[in-house]
């Protein structure tokens, strides 16, 4: 191309004013290598420069929180001497370009975040968002992403126990691939990514460093797709950023790192993710208040002729940085040799430099040989923590009121509710059948139900009868109409999902997938989301212990709908029997537990519902968020289900929360899981059939009187008695269970095999 030569800092993604800031920090002009280091570290992806001022508003504290946001993963005390670490991250743009490898390396990255904390990764979950499947490219993306997660997750040996699957046109050019990982550790093994002890060694573990992923954080993750077909027409220049995952290397790296930690051979440990070596070395040094000398010539390379900036910023996968004392080096070397993991001393912890004004500053020095030429020298904390923070302009979308006024809640039912219901049924089994969900013999409830439930057990953990539960949730349809209330309702729904397996929610992690932060409407959505999340977490007593922000999810100037994804972690105190599940029994009474009507303007809001979206109606109102109505219901359900998990006698045979698709879908799913139908007795309107708002559960009991007595002031509505082969709801729905099963189980495969 023959446009005028772009100044280097801009080519590296830095603005003119950021260049000025760098000059201020260094009190001189940066050289090219230093600029490259700032380019990646001050990228949106690494520095959170557009979101950080907002994220500060999230509540992060609770008694059981051992590690909150800011570390590689959040950690809670789960009891019995066991801590649980959890983190969620996005790998959106890489997956849009190479779905298999993008998703695979997303799994690899999130695992490293968790075992960095000393935890053995025990579960993965994968919230996924694609365009509608009537398009061949979307099907290619779905198949690639799912096989990438399957290929990496199964091979590395961590069960994938759940996720989300959303199809919406807003993701057609910008699919979202989020990955959550949780792991457990004996509380005393908890380690942080801190470098300390002048004279200690920084050891690079794992793969060789190649040119893959150079500039991934600044080029790929911190800019939108220019063309409106997303990655399909991405220019070749961005393509070398694709990384290839090697789960076999990662598996050996996990085992080697956990053994290093068990044997007390490391002082600190940090994964290499976005921005590679520069990120890991500057973050560990900054956290420890020390300096670090990095010898670029000591880093094992996969390709000849790599320049220092390439070596420092490469995002080659499956690498970790360990800080160790020199005395332990030979033990570390031997242990790594056993696991066939490469280990090389690439850096040294050095004392901070004392400046003229008396401040002491830990410097990151890049050298050619430990005693060789200094190629770059910058304060570690200026890279890791001192990127400029932006309070970008925010503006409520001007058309939002019009959109909200276009409310489908009052639509007359058109066509056949039977057909509508069948169209809403989709079983994601085609996805999760490709995931090993059972490894480690912990999975009591795997994918396909309300939340995953596992025994809190694993190699090296103290014995415990506890269980832990995880649910990932998102509702971009709600959040598009009202990001603040939408995320609050999403969190309430996630808490309800946990309740279905008897778990009380303990902590939240989030992945905020939004459009271009330079669009004021997007920043407004983000800010509202943070406030809504804070309100909900405060009301429900939940700390946010970690998260990730993915911006620039746009293509051709169109932003995705705001898509905050939450991952909730819950605990069951005694897990010795499986929770009831969805399989009601012949003759049981089916009960709606919780308020029938939504709080707020509309009794049965259809705005943002799957039913309305299916009909192309994307406007309207959503329910209010009223924790005072939700909390007592959830507490009751948790108590009922936990009692089953503790193997106490119970009349409860089934439980399911009313989620996506509303009451009609919840009843269909339960009918499908046993091949038993139900005749619903109360009269139910069309809106109530499909309306979505959290705080309602369908439960089945063999002794309604006893159940009612325990429910106390929680409102119950008797829906009917289980039996027969049909689901009948007033004059609106009359379907055979067979029809429901066939449609639901075949929907996804049918869409994926569609021709064209």
């Amino acid at each position: 191309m023959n446009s005028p030569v772009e100044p280097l800092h801009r080519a590296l993604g830095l603005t003119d004013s950021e260049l000025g800031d760098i000059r201020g920090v260094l009190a001189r002009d940066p050289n090219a290598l230093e600029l490259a280091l700032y380019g990646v570290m001050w990228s949106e992806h690494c520095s959170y420069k557009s979101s950080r001022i907002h994220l500060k508003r999230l509540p992060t504290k609770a008694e059981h929180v051992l590690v909150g946001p800011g570390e590689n993963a959040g950690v809670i005390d789960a009891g019995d001497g066991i801590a649980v670490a959890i983190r969620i991250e996005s790998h959106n743009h890489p997956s849009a370009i190479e779905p298999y490898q993008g998703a695979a390396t997303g799994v690899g990255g999130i695992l490293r975040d968790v075992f960095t904390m000393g935890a053995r990764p025990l579960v993965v979950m994968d919230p996924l968002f694609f365009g509608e499947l009537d398009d061949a490219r979307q099907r290619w993306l779905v198949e690639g992403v799912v096989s990438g997660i399957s290929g990496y997750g199964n091979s590395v040996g961590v069960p994938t126990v759940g996720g989300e699957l959303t199809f919406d046109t807003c993701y057609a050019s910008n699919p979202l691939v989020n990955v959550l990982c949780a792991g457990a550790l004996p509380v005393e093994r908890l380690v942080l990514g801190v470098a300390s002890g002048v004279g200690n060694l920084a050891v690079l573990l794992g793969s060789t460093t190649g040119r893959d992923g150079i500039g991934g954080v600044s080029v790929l993750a911190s800019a939108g797709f220019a063309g409106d077909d997303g990655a399909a027409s991405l220019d070749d220049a961005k393509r070398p950023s694709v990384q290839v995952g090697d789960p076999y290397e990662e598996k050996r790296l996990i085992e080697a790192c956990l053994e290093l930690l068990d044997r007390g051979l490391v002082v600190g440990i940090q994964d290499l993710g976005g921005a590679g070596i520069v990120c890991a070395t500057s973050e560990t040094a900054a956290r420890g208040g020390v300096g670090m000398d990095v010898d670029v010539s000591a880093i094992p390379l996969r390709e000849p002729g790599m320049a220092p900036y390439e070596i420092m910023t490469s995002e080659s996968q499956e690498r970790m940085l360990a800080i160790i004392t020199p005395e332990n080096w030979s033990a570390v070397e031997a242990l790594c040799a056993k696991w066939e993991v490469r280990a090389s001393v690439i850096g040294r912890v050095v004392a901070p430099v004392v400046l003229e004004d008396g401040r002491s500053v830990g410097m990151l020095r890049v050298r050619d040989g430990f005693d060789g030429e200094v190629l770059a020298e910058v304060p570690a904390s200026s890279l890791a923590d001192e990127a400029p923070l932006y309070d970008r302009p925010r503006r409520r979308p001007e058309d939002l009121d019009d959109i909200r006024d276009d409310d489908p809640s009052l639509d007359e039912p058109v066509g056949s509710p039977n057909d509508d219901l069948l169209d809403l049924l989709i079983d994601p089994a085609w996805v999760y059948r490709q995931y090993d969900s059972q490894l480690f013999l912990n999975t009591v409830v795997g994918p396909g139900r309300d939340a995953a439930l596992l025994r809190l057990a694993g190699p090296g953990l103290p014995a415990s009868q506890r269980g832990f539960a995880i649910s990932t949730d998102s509702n971009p349809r709600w959040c598009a109409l009202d990001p603040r209330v939408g995320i609050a309702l999403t969190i309430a729904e996630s808490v309800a999902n946990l309740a279905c397996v008897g778990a009380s929610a303990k902590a939240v992690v989030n992945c905020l997938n939004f459009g271009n932060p330079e669009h004021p409407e997007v920043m407004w959505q983000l800010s509202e989301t943070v406030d809504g999340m804070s309100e909900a977490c405060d009301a429900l007593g939940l700390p946010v212990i970690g998260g990730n922000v993915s911006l620039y999810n746009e293509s051709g100037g169109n932003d995705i709908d705001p898509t905050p994804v939450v991952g909730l972690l819950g605990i069951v105190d005694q897990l010795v029997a499986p929770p009831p599940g969805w399989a009601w029994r012949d003759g049981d009474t089916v009960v709606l537990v919780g308020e029938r009507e939504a709080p707020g303007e509309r009794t049965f809001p259809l705005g943002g519902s799957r039913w309305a979206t299916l009909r192309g109606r994307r406007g309207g109102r959503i329910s209010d968020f009223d924790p005072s109505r939700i909390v007592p219901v959830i507490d009751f359900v948790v108590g009922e289900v936990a009692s089953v998990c503790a193997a106490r006698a119970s009349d409860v045979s089934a439980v399911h929360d009313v989620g996506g698709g509303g009451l009609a879908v919840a009843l269909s799913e339960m009918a499908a899981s046993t091949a038993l139908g139900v005749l619903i007795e109360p009269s139910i309107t069309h809106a109530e059939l499909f309306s979505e708002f959290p705080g309602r559960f369908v439960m089945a009991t063999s002794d309604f009187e006893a159940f009612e007595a325990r429910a106390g002031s929680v409102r119950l509505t008797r829906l009917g008695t289980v039996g027969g082969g049909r689901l009948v709801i007033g004059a609106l729905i009359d379907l055979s269970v067979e029809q429901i099963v066939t449609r639901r189980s075949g929907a996804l495969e049918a869409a994926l095999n569609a021709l064209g």
Partner: protein
Amino acid sequence: MKRFGVVIFPGSNCEYDAALGVTQLGAEAEFVWHSDTDLSRFDGIILPGGFAHGDYLRPGALARFSPVMKAVAHFALEGGPVLGICNGFQVLTEAGLLAGALQKNRGLTFLSHDTTLIVASTRSVLTSEATIGQELVVPINHFSGAYTCDDATYESLVANEQVILRYRDNPNGSRGDVAGICNETRNVVGLMPHPERAMSTLLGSADGLVLMSSFVSAGIAVG
């Protein structure tokens, strides 16, 4: 107390599950690193599931060259019970200790779900306590589980009652619905499903107990 060796290749990932399966039945389990060459202290050997050497090249192709495999072959020759589960089955076929080969599943995707197995022969260290025709719900978790062999091999497997387990609803395209086989002397067994994952109703099924218990009972020291 009987003691079973659970072999770990780099990339194995069901070694804890296999060990739990054995200890749950009152026997001892000890991990054996793939470079070990002495198995004389064991009453039986398990090659667990996973992705030995990343399954690169072919599942089991690199693992069969590990030093421990010579010892496994010797152990088997002496009549010691050897069980290969999933990836372990693949390793045993690559090593020539069991006939045939495992190809990619018919649908070219990884499959993780319950299957119903039908016991086809009780003359093996894995099925001695079961009954012929017994149906067992046991999960599969594999990408390359389609059992393949030539006609002559298949006919002799059937004639010798070496097919020990078949799928009721063939999930992966295996020849003759084969889920598990044994060698001619019936002490080496391999199967794609995971019996060690079906030993507790809390986790869904306890139907694998009869298989694991047969194997543990078969344990004998091979001096």
